[in-house]
């Protein structure tokens, strides 16, 4: 006698064979073939074994869940507070450094202005007294015409 494929028996156990004729043929074969019947029975046994597998809950899971939820929201709030204060601190540092830069920058500008004013006057005066200028001046006819 030809035996059924074990994968087909597995599908049959799960009621996943849609075709009624095939279902009937398998059922008939299982009634007649001892070997295939043994495979079928062992599959059913295994299924019952897994169906009855349960993890006993020893604690009040929902109560523990509620506690965790509360802790989670507390952590969320403290994380929010921390990020908020961190952002405030950062913006304070930024403002402080910005105003410092502005202040020192203005001071420097004044310094540069003073320096350039003095130096330019000095330089133009010394240029005026230099030899080159004297030569040019000497060529000018100062007499009134």
């Amino acid at each position, binding site marked *: 006698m030809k035996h059924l494929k074990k994968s087909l028996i*597995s599908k049959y156990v799960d009621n996943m064979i849609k075709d009624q004729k095939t279902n009937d043929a398998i059922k008939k074969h299982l009634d007649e073939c001892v070997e295939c019947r043994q*495979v079928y029975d062992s599959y059913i046994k295994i299924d019952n*074994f897994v169906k009855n597998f*349960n*993890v006993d*809950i020893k604690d009040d899971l929902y109560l523990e869940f509620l506690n965790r939820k509360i802790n989670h929201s507390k952590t969320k709030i403290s994380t929010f507070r921390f990020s908020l204060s961190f952002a405030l601190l950062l913006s304070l540092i930024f403002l402080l450094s910005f105003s410092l830069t502005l202040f020192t920058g203005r001071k420097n500008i004044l310094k540069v202005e003073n320096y350039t004013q003095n130096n330019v006057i000095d330089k133009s005066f010394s240029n005026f007294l230099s030899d080159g200028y004297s030569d040019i001046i000497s060529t000018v006819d100062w007499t009134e015409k």
Partner: protein
Amino acid sequence: MEKNNSEDFNLIEQFLNGDENSFKTLFEKYSQRVLSLVYSYTKNYDDAKDITQEIFLKVYNSLENFKKRSSFSTWLYRITLNESISFLRKMKKEKNLVSIDEVNEIEIQNNSNDQNNYDRGLMEKILLSLPENQKIAFILAKKEQLSYREIGKIMNISEKAVESLIYRARENIRNFLKNELG
């Protein structure tokens, strides 16, 4: 199944409208199933409990994003699988940090549990012997009574692949029992 779905959808709707008790009903309906599924990954009650609570916290915070394209159970089991897998990954990384003494301790604890409850021990042994995919497909099919299609959706694989995983799981368990019980 359809009735179950609409019941869940109603509870979700009520929860989103501010009724916290609806979430409690959902929790009580599914926590045992989720815990069993997670336990098959962790093989440790405390870890399973911890992950189960994390899963429900995730569900609690993201129920408003649930689009109702699938049933609630499919969505929940998908989160369960993802969380369990990420736990296993984390454990694998930490595994190298466990000392030999600690491993011996764990083994002694397991042995004492086996002596107290043989069937439970045998069941755990069988679950341990199965590859992850086979184990999950089989548990979802038998314990949760889900169809191949639903399992495929949860595990992101085809119906044909589910069929093959369940068949291989059955065969592995059969061979395991043959070797154990003679």
